[in-house]
């Protein structure tokens, strides 16, 4: 385990060293990521500024959901975002053997060597939105531990999504639109689940638990949770394991002749 941490730490240092060589590009990328990030609450801002709302939800409560989603997305993007593109490139070029020859797990190798420092912009933007929403929404500080547990569960969903996307690229070779499929599913997690009908709510809670990415953690922070909600963390962890298992299975299905 210590070796894993040591390798991961070295890879993060290398990623930032690489970024610092092209500082302007890095800063621009951060700014652009941040800008794209601001698009997402724009709809909410315009809706509330026009005097409408999501029924039962105040502006800062919705902003809290969206900031939690952005934070989770940023964190998962930094850690796992590069795995899809690296896998896709290796599979398309037939060079995945290089990864297989490394003296460590292929998945761990790709995760550690593809740390995406550009997603830092999402974390910064998400963090700023979160602090704003935290100050102005009626948040219960005592619910912070519950929030942390549910946020971790949501992060498991994000990790599972990224693994599934990367695994898909073994069979659907070179399709750069794979993330669009998963992004469209995750859109349900960006808004209060209460606006959707029961069937979608059920799917987003138990089957593909995108509701856990932001809706449930934010609801916990707003004091609207009971102990049963923690049971929903189970499918999230299972979802992450499903992603890891699928990726490892697809690695075994990979065929190549040396690039």
């Amino acid at each position, binding site marked *: 385990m210590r070796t894993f941490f040591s390798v991961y730490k070295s890879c993060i240092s290398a990623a930032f060293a690489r970024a610092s060589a092209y500082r302007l590009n890095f800063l621009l990328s951060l700014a652009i990521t941040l800008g794209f990030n601001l698009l997402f609450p724009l709809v909410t801002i315009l809706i509330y500024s026009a005097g409408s709302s999501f029924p039962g939800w105040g502006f800062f409560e919705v902003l809290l959901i969206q900031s939690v989603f952005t934070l989770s997305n940023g964190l998962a993007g930094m850690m796992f975002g590069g795995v899809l593109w690296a896998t896709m490139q290796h599979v398309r070029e037939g060079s995945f053997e290089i990864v297989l020859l490394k003296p460590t797990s292929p998945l761990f190798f790709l995760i550690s060597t593809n740390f995406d420092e550009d997603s830092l912009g999402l974390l910064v933007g998400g963090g700023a939105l979160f602090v704003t929403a935290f100050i102005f929404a009626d948040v219960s500080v005592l619910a912070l531990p519950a929030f942390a547990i549910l946020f971790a569960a949501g992060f498991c969903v994000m990790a599972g999504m990224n693994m599934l996307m990367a695994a898909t690229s073994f069979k659907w070779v070179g399709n750069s639109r794979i993330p669009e499929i998963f992004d469209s599913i995750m859109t349900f997690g960006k*808004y209060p689940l209460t606006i959707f009908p029961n069937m979608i709510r059920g799917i987003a809670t138990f089957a593909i638990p995108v509701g856990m990415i932001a809706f449930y953690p934010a609801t916990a922070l707003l004091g609207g949770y009971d102990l049963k909600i923690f049971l929903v963390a189970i499918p999230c962890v299972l979802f992450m394991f499903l992603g890891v298992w699928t990726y490892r299975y697809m690695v075994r299905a990979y065929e190549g002749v040396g690039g």
Partner: protein
Amino acid sequence: MFPFLKKQIDVCAAVASVTFKEWGAYRSHSMVSIFVGPVFFIVQYFIWTAVFESGAMPGMELEEVIRYFAAVALIGYLVMDFADWNLSMLVRTGKFLTFALRPLNHSFFALSQKVGHRILGFLVEFVPCYFIFMFIFKIDMRPAFFGWVLISISLAFLMNFYVNYCIGLASFWVVQSQGIRSVYELLGGIFSGALIPLVFFPLPLQKLQFFLPFQYTSYVPAMVFLGKYSLGGVEISIPVIVGIQALAVAVVFMLCKILNEFAMKHSTAVGA
């Protein structure tokens, strides 16, 4: 005049046909839209249904908003373009030199490629999604004025291409134009009306849109589809707004020509 036009049409048809076959080999990539488009639409449907439950939004009724988002999704499949990325890649890798040696203007070649690419998009993205919206979601997808919608979408197609081509031309000066393309994409995401109808924006921002290219690629054709256009507190008849759109396309086309001239003079390359 006519032999020249015939030659141009023949060239366009040949390039479009090859592009169609080339991308047709990867049609499953385009067919991702058959899943993604309806899923995004479902989300929009429930968002706006919930929003209108709590109160009206200025300028549009719920039914119009729902039809608007369906139209925006479908129009997106017809006008989608990545000429900027393509040109940028050709300049960066030096491959543009091979086009400079051909007896054919690259912008016309790229436009013909786009025609072929979007014919494929029409068949594998637009048609299936149209039927999904019309017969599964039961959205009334009959345009108010078929002829005007056709003209407006054609103009949006040209507008999207020429603006993207202008951005691609920036690569002759900055080589890696990713930053410029991202900024345009960001602004386009906000101001094209694909994210939210422009009529919901604050009034000064709405007025500003008449002088920016973004609304002409999405908002205008979608509103022409609905049969009514208003922005910045002004209601404009359909023929007039399509005329304004045509004027905007002409301006961008001229700008593209001028930039192209400068770019060709600035361009240097060896080998490729």
